[in-house]
Structure formats: C-alpha cells, structure tokens
C-alpha cells in the first residue's frame, strides 16, 4: 500500500476527478468549466465521474447521520479510483474531508476509507497552489475586486493564501481589503432558509461591508455564499457584481456575473 507521502506525489499527469457540486451543476455550470480548464492548464488529466450527485452535507448538518452515511459511502466508492478529488467549494470538500470520518464513525473500515480519500481531496484553489504549484499566465481582468473567505474553506481546510496567490497573477486586478473578510455571510446551508430573518440580518452587514470596500466585483470560492451575498447586494440595488474566483482565474469572465442576464 502506498504511504501517505506517496499519495501526495502526483503521478504524471495526475488523474484528477472533478466533483462539480450540486450548486455548480444546477446553478452555475460555468464555474465547473472554469475549474475543468484550470485543472487541465495545471497539467492534470481531468475526469468527471458521471455517477456523481451530492456529498450529503444537507443531511449531515440536519442531524440525519444515517442518510449522510448512505451518500458518503457512495461518494467514496465513486471517487476512490482517482489520484485526487477536486471541487470548486471549500464547503463540500470540508464535508468529505473533515466530516465523512465522523458520519461513518460507527463503521471503522468505512471511516478509514473516508480518511484516506479525504487526504487526497482538495478545494480547487488550494489544490492548484499546494499540489500543482500552478499560477495562471496571460489572464487579465481589469477590475477592483474584494474577496470573501468562506468559513469552511478557511477554518476546516486552511484556504487563505492560495486564492490570493492565484489572483495575484491576474493582470489588471486590484484587490481591495474587505472588512470582516473572515466573518460568516449568514448563508450556512439550510440555515438561511430555516432562520431567514437572522440570515438576512447577517448578510445585510456583509453586503454593507462589501459596498464600503469600494470594489466593483465580489469574489469568493464557494457558490452558496456567493449566491447569498450577490442576492442581497442585488436586492439592495448595489451595482457590485459577483463571480466565483475560478471564473476569473480561468479567464472566463466573459460569461455574465452571478444573476446577470446572459
């Protein structure tokens, strides 16, 4: 069996499975194609397993561990054959990496398999920087942007420097600091519809901070949070547009911003 160190050494080219995530699949496929392009540009052999569905996070965070385990075992079997699993979301990767072993704790074999796969599962931008040592070349985006650090990526996976390093290689981009960049936007998965008034109060403060940053464009690494913030900015009549950072890094901002009619 391969040692953990060997597992971190990519075969050439590494065989990477793209986990598209439910939200990107249904709401904004362009983020998936941006992720695909970035991984290909970074030298990966990318495959999209066609049997993939959801990681089970909604069930897990609702306390439904049994249904979570059903979807977790499915995910592990489907993605185990690849060198790496990469998703354009810190939240979904946090689920598979940090929480599958918890959800499967009652079955040691499955919990161990979850742990081994988790070690090879990465959020897109951290994978590009930490594993592939990739930087975009020849990409420009002339705009002032600000960046929101989504909580799962930041706290469960330590994604902070990687998006900044990647965005630093984009021409014409000016990054404005965001006050409270590491403060939750109030999305919280099912939280935002279970407690919509609290969620609204939280995202209202986030939208105000984004406005104060002076940026024209909001970037982030998780579509759920981005839709929440973009939806609030839009309702408030703000001109700030929102993209997933992968779209900027892949040079695919010719597509309309989130919610902008294409």
């Amino acid at each position, binding site marked *: 069996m391969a040692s953990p160190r060997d597992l971190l050494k990519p075969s050439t080219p590494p065989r990477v499975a793209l986990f*598209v995530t439910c939200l990107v699949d*249904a709401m904004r496929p362009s983020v998936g194609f941006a992720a695909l392009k970035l991984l290909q540009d970074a030298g990966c052999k990318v495959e999209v397993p066609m049997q993939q569905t959801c990681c089970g996070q909604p*069930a897990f965070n609702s306390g439904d561990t049994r249904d979570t385990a059903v979807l977790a075992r499915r995910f592990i079997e489907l993605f185990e054959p690849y060198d790496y699993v990469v998703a354009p979301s810190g939240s979904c990767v946090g689920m598979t990496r940090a929480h599958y072993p918890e959800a499967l704790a009652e079955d040691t074999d499955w919990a161990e398999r979850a742990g081994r796969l988790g070690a090879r599962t990465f959020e897109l931008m951290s994978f590009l920087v930490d594993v592939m040592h990739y930087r975009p070349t020849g990409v420009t985006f002339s705009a002032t942007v600000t960046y929101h650090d989504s909580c799962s990526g930041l706290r469960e996976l330590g994604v902070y420097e990687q998006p900044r390093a990647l965005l630093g290689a984009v021409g014409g981009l000016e990054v404005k600091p965001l006050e409270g960049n590491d403060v939750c936007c109030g999305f919280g998965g099912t939280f935002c*519809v279970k407690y919509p008034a609290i969620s609204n109060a939280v995202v209202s403060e986030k939208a105000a901070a984004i406005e104060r940053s002076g940026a024209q464009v909001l970037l982030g690494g998780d579509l759920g949070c981005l839709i929440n913030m973009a939806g609030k900015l839009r309702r408030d009549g703000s001109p700030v547009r929102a993209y997933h950072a992968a779209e900027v890094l892949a040079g695919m901002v010719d597509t309309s911003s989130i919610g902008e009619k294409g």
Partner: protein
Amino acid sequence: MQTSVVSFQARVDAALADPTLKLAIDRTTGTAERKRTAAVAAFPQFEAARDRGKAIKDHVIEHLDHYLLEFERNATASGAKVHWASSADEASRIVVDLCRRADAKRVTRVKSMLGEEIGLPHALDAAGIERFETDLAEHIVQLAGDRPSHIVWPSMHRTREQVSVMFKKAHRVPHREETIEAMVDSARRELRDKFLSADVSISGANFLIADTGATCTVTNEGNAELTTSPPRMHIVTAGIEKLVPSLPHAFALLRLLVRSATGADVTQYTTFHCGPRQPGDHDGPEEFHIVLVDNGRTKMLADAGLREMLRCIRCGACMNHCVVFRQLGGHAYGGTYPGPMGAVLTPVFDGLEQSRDLAHACTLNGKCQEVCPVNIPLPTLLRGWRDRSWRDGLEPASMRFGLGVFTFVASRPRLYRLGAAVAVRVMRLFGLGGWIRSMPGLGAWTAYRDFPVPEGRTFMARYASGEGRRS
C-alpha cells in the same frame, strides 16, 4: 432556570425588531472583539498557553473524582464547610437554608452565572430575603427586573443612555453629569451601605484549587472583596468543573480567561478565599460554606459528545464573535447561558425538546472554536445536538420526509440528473432579468434576497455533450 416558554422564533423576531438592542450589542461585542484581537496579538505564546489550558482542563475532567475529594479535604481542613448539590433546586435550597439559619435579612451577591443557572436570585426573593447585586451590571439587571444577557457583561443589552434614566429613577443621590464616571459614582453611593450591612454574602468561583481548598473569583470592580469581608457568613456556589490541581494551574487559565473575555493583560481583581476568619484576622466571615454543584455535569462527563464542554472557562469569546449572537443578543437564546456555549449547555439543563432550535440557529462557521481559549469544538458539539434531535424524533416531519426523498434521489444518478434539469427549468420560468424575486417554495430566501436564475443546462448535461473536454 427553565428556558423561557415564549417560542424561539418570537424571541428572535423581538430581538431583530429592536434597533437600540442592536446598538448596545454592537458597542460591547465590537469593543470586546477589537481588544481580544490586540491582546492575543501582543501575547505570542497564546497558542501554547491555549494548548496548556486545554490540557489542564482535560486532566482535571479525567480525574475529577480525585480532585473533588482532595478539594473537599483541604477546604474542610481550612475551616470551610463543603456541601454537595446534585441539582439546581438542591443547590439553591442549600443556600436559602444556610441564609435562614444565619437569620439573614439582607444578602449581597457577587455576579455568578452559576447562581443564575441554579435560579438563586429567584429563590432568595421567594424566601423573602432582601438581595442586593453588587456587580455594576448585575445591579442594572436587578433594577430593570430582567435577566443577564451575556456571561461577562450581564447588562450588555442596555445602552448607557437607558441606564442613566434607570439610575435617576432608582438611586437616592443620582448622577448629575451624563458621564460613565458619574454614573458609576451614583451606583457606588447607592450600594456602599448595602455592602456593609449585609448578613450573608454569596459569590461564585472561577477556580476551585484542590491542593489548598481555596476558591478564586475574578471581578472587574473589586466587589468580591468588599462583598465577602463584612458579612458573618460567606457562601460560594461553584460547578464541579471549576477544579484545578493547584494555584499555578489557576494562573495559567487566568491568562487565557482575561485576554479572551475583556482583552486586558491581567484581571482587575483576583480574589482568593480560603476558610473563614481566623483568630487575629481583621475581618472575614465567621462561617464559610462552599456548595459544589453537579446539575448535569457528571452526565456531561459520561457523554463523549458533551464532555469537552466541561473545559469551558466562561470567557464569552464565543458569543462575542458569533454572527447570530451579534444579531440577537443573549435573551433570545432563552436559557441561562447564551451564544454558542449556551446553545450547547441549555439542552443539558432544560431538555432538548424545549431548546432544539438553539443548535440549529447556527451557521456552523467555526469562528467560536477558533477564538475559544480552551479549543472546545463548539460546532461539532452543536451538530451532535442536531443528531440527537433527529434520533429522538424531534425534527419536523417535513424535514425528515424531504431529506429521505433527497437521499433516495441522490443515490440514483439518472433520477438526480432529471431532478436537477427539471428544477433548473422551473426556476428559469420564474426568472426576470436574471433574478428571481419570488417563487413558491423559495419564499424564505426571496423574502430578503433575490435568487439568481440558473444559467441554463446543467454542467453534467453540457459535459455529457462534449463541452470542456480536451483530447
């Protein structure tokens, strides 16, 4: 104390509709956050201290039986009388009985959240014993007839403007200038003779020191000394998780507590009590009683999903940094303890059925654990309550049905693809100019936010037709 019977949603609505409350919360938590950040930055060993603090608490929790008996032995040797209370009711009954035995007409209290937990203010009032709160914020809470809304700043839900009005109405010689100093002087004038004329004083404890039998109480105002010295009896109530092996362990935890709570480098006043007045002492109580309270703690100890909560040193950092607490304040939580730590503890005291909302009203963003000085995995513990609530059948039937259907569909990729395609089409019907302003089933979202219209065909459909592939 029981969780308020008013529904969580009603308390949330009331809190969100109160702009003065929001102003008060923002002032206090904003300052607390700023000062804590600076204090931690100026203390490069903070992470090492945090590891040590966690290790001390874990060790004590692991050997609680040993340290409890050691503490009882040493406290008794110093002349204190140790009482054991298994429940909140038993604890407050012991205290009230001691007061009655001492023929107490008037008692003074030093702020203690455990006192609130066991319902002591109410029990004393019900027994007809005149009670004076000596902590400035608790004095405000008592004047207003409400409950603490924060474990460090009990009256943080009141603005200083509101407090000024209250003092002018209640104090014998109220302040004339609208400054904080003048208001503090007004409270001082009002309370001074109460300190001196009380029959019994009651305090909590931040630490119980096993090898000496001493108790340690931290205050910002020095009221612990003044309260506990003149009366003839002093009663300490403390949770059994407050034990530390010896004094250096208390200091190791104090360094974490003060930085996490107020952002100061040292506590203003750190008061130690060890036994009653000895021959030759100038002052001090003739009788010194310590009531050790379980009230669910041994149950938590036996429960791997809650044991880590016993590390909590009650600093309040988790609530100061919680996006939900910062919108609602403490009263909306309905229990004795608010914020993330309160959401974990309240179901222990009041039962999950009454308080199941608390674990759900959380975005699981993890900031609370990040700032916790003893690294309690609060999001994991809160998710643990969600698991129990699911297993106990407390979750709504609609939720159980919905997730059952979702799992069924998500286990069948072709069905899932079809479902996603239909959802996308339906949403596109409701979209106008790229955004959905309202749609059946999406009301909780669109009441406050627009929802973007899906781009078009799903990723999987487009990928299946060859898009994005390189040979």
